């Protein structure tokens, strides 16, 4: 996916000004940046929820079509069960109810919620709700995945357990993913590449991570150095 000379402004507030960025197909790009520097706008442009004022967002053939969006909050339908919340996201692409049930069961099983399938969102904890949202985003037959700080405001244990659940599902069917977060550690744990926003015309930092995801340790020097670079970029006057 490529953002080519994209410009976007809200009234006088210029978010992107001839901004370019390339994301390798089938990889996760982790995006960090201070508030108001265009992280969510980047996701909205990628999803087609908003249009660029000028420039283009070019998708590869494998990225065209439906989009899965994991929001900051789970956004589950309160009157529908865990099962229905996932199954409903399949209806536009899968006509056979039996197959829909099988897919739903598969993803709910992977996030450990099959036993809770008949519960309603109000009966679940915050972490369980977000796991339903993760299952829904993967069950939806999409080509592109967008994550808007989905692990924000969760305690560290829950956050890492949800990130693990996310990676289990993602490894099953890797697809181009943009993962927006405030947390450099999260970005490094999940991304194939990390990007720091903060300048309207170009990323402050864009770096590929060569260490395989499952070999990344918290005391890996190269990753600690990258984290330091990200923090520096975030704290820089433009960041």
């Amino acid at each position, binding site marked *: 996916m490529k953002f080519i000379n994209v410009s976007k402004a809200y009234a006088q507030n210029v978010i992107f000004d001839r901004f370019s960025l390339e994301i390798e197909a089938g990889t996760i790009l982790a995006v960090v940046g201070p508030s108001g520097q265009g992280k969510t706008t980047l996701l909205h442009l990628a999803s087609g929820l908003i249009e660029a004022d000028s420039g283009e967002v070019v998708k590869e053939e494998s990225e065209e079509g439906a989009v899965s969006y994991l929001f900051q*909050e789970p956004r589950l*339908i309160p009157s*529908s*069960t865990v099962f*229905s919340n996932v199954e*409903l996201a399949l209806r536009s*692409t899968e006509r056979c109810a039996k197959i829909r049930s099988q897919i739903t*069961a598969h993803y709910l099983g992977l996030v450990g919620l099959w036993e809770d399938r008949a519960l309603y969102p109000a009966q679940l904890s915050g972490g369980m709700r977000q796991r339903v949202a993760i299952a829904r985003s993967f069950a939806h037959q999409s080509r592109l995945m967008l994550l808007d700080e989905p692990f924000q405001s969760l305690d560290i244990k829950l956050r890492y357990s949800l990130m693990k659940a996310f990676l289990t599902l993602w490894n099953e069917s890797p697809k181009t993913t943009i993962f927006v977060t405030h947390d450099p550690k999260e970005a490094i744990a999940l991304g194939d590449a990390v990007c720091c926003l903060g300048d309207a015309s170009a990323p402050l930092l864009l770096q590929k991570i060569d260490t395989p995801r499952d070999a990344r340790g918290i005391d890996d020097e190269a990753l600690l150095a990258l984290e330091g670079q990200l923090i520096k970029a975030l704290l820089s006057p433009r960041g």
Partner: protein
Amino acid sequence: MRSVKHTLVALISSALLLALWQVGAHVLDSQILLPGLAPVFKTLVSIIGDGPFLANIGATVVRAFQSFLIIIILGSVAGVLGGNFPLFSAAMKPFVTTLKAVPVMSIILLAFIWFTSGQVPLFSAFLMGFPVMYVQVESGWRSIDGNLIQMCDLYEIKGFDRLVHFTIPSLVPSLVTGARISLSMVWKVVIAAEVLTVPRYGVGSRMQLAQVQLQTDRVLSWTLIAILLTACGDLLFELIVHAGAAVKRTVDRRRAG
């Protein structure tokens, strides 16, 4: 335990009310001003045994039910239109504001000039209940969570699926609240209109005739019947709401396997 406590308090409170009535009747010592409990309940039993009792009850119930149904249907349709189209909402505003401000009696008296005595309760109840239902549904539609609408768009939940699984369930609380308020209003307006227009059958007509003949025990007996009718209507409504929720839960459980 909590519900037992509440029931007990309600029973004690009801007993206190009846005791106050009896004390008042004893102090006033007048069958016209305030008859005691015994004569009123005796009259109540004789009214229930009368031939036209069911015809009177039936006429009031049918009028209330008809107007309630019309309020629910038209109030919901107009509410959804108002919530969805700001211009429609702006056009409805003067009607709704006027109807909310006009006294019930004015509506009944005007309706009596325009319609027959049997139609007046129906028309008056509709005019009083419609704004309540309309306002509830309109605000319910407007308060549908925009984040969830965006989620439905992104996950391509549309058409019939969106209507059944998202839109209608989002509106249910407003529909139930509007219907509940309208229902209790409908009984009062229908009976008040019957009192003023005296159709051949109706609880209000019986009250009016008893009042003209200074039969206070009969007025109070018919009032008790009206209270019971309202209570039964409310109970039936709550039962339907609970049954609907139970059916939905069962269907949801079956779908989840």
